[in-house]
């Protein structure tokens, strides 16, 4: 049964550190991101959350090891990550539709020559999976924050990743859009059985959605279930008043 096996399947960080320009951005980060679980990364601004993500995506050189381990405890050399960025900076007037954007990621045929029927079907299926099929012909610049997050999620899920990284997908999205987004993520967690790493500032949502919480400040201060982590001294030290609001 998958539940039984997947306690072993994970992305494991062992003593990961990142140095840049003589500064230590991260040191001795050790944690597991399990398949079929949503792991939340919390911490203040500047705690190194984005740095950790960039190291995971292979964008920053790092010390230590990042291992991808399968159900049987064997190393898998390849780690396919799906990434949903925090925000997009692009020209809102650009005549590029959601379909163009996704087709550009799916195929080599340049989208200025048009989109083939096969690609169109693939794009439609991907959007359908996140309940966003109606956005297909919408220009990218005319999508709301929440709609863009869905499009980016659809993109991140195709091809199916081993690790889905959601970089604070909350900014610029209203509460309703956010819940819809996370409910979709939760559904996908069950059906696709992938490891999910969520970076978030919203502790309410973390408590509600995360299976595992990692508190970061240059290194791992505490990790475990949300209940446990929220009761640690380290959590108090980092969030102080934030805690009383919970």
């Amino acid at each position, binding site marked *: 049964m998958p539940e039984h096996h997947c306690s072993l399947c994970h992305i494991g960080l062992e003593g990961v550190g990142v140095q840049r320009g003589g500064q230590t951005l991260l040191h001795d980060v050790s944690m597991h991101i399990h398949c079929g679980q949503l792991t939340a990364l919390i911490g203040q601004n500047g705690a190194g959350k984005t740095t950790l993500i960039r190291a995971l995506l292979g*964008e920053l050189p790092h010390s230590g090891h990042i291992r991808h381990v399968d159900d049987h405890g064997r190393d898998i050399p390849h780690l396919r990550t799906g990434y949903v960025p925090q925000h997009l900076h692009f020209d809102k007037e*650009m005549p590029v*539709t959601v379909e163009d*954007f996704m087709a*550009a990621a799916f195929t080599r045929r340049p989208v200025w020559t048009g989109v083939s029927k096969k690609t169109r079907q693939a794009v439609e299926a991907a959007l359908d999976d996140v309940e966003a099929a109606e956005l297909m012909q919408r220009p990218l610049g005319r999508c709301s924050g929440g709609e863009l997050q869905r499009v980016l999620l659809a993109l991140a899920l195709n091809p199916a990743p081993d690790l889905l990284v959601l970089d604070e997908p909350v900014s610029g999205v209203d509460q309703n859009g956010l819940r819809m987004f996370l409910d979709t993520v939760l559904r996908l967690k069950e059906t696709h059985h992938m490891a999910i790493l969520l970076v978030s500032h919203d502790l309410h949502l973390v408590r509600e959605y995360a299976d595992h919480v990692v508190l970061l400040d240059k290194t791992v201060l505490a990790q475990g279930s949300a209940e446990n982590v929220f009761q640690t001294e380290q959590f108090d030290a980092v969030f102080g008043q934030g805690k009383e609001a919970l």
Partner: protein
Amino acid sequence: MDVIYGIMDAVLPLEALQFSFMKNAFLAILLLTPLLGLLGTMAVNQQMAFFSDALGHSALTGIGLGIVLGVSSDLLSMIVFGVVWAVLICRIKQTGATSTDTVISVFSSTSIAAGLLILSRGGGFAKYSSLLIGDVLAVTPADLGWLLMALIVGVVLWVQMYNRLLLTSVNESLARSRGVKTHLTECAFVVLVAVAVMLAIKWVGVMLINALLILPAAAGRNLARNSRQHALWSVVIALGSGVAGLLSAYAWDTSAGAAIVLYAAGCYAISLAGRSLLKR
């Protein structure tokens, strides 16, 4: 060439096209404008109008340096310098040290000054003034060969890089997570723009080259809803303005580059009006 001229006489029996210099100019426009139209779409979407403007100015330095170093071909020294210059800006931009705007401005003014310093030595800048306004009537059959090659190579590269460039322009980390070499892609694009601009400068002129790259794409953007329409409109407007401009310049006995750009500007004005109709 005679075969091509013969075909042109049969298909386009225009009085203006009876001379072979007009035929050459006409063919040059047919080869150059579609490439500029295509590249322009991305230049406009990435808000690179200022960059390509500065790139055009660097042609002066390229020629100047070519003369100092004793390079026989103007075009060669322009292209080599333009490419080096474009890669340099691209790399500096990617380090994220200074704002792009400022970097480009510094490069632009430096290259104009250096070019003028060399070319005006001994009071002789007048003989380079054709560089500023261009002369499309001076195209030779050999030039047409080069332009044809540039069009083919340019379009092939454009087919290869477009999707990756589009992803990169929306979000770099996202593009990288999908295996796009974003820095390489960006630099390849500016190099391609640099080569296309340098090839066109002799015919269109330093002062107007940027308009030919930006205006058709800017007009097309007002009318298009997706990437395909954008490319289509941009190429059609570039081609149409090019042909109309050339024929008008012949009729009015004036600069072809200027006439072409004015037609493109007219298209832009119309597209602004059309935009409100199409998008509502």
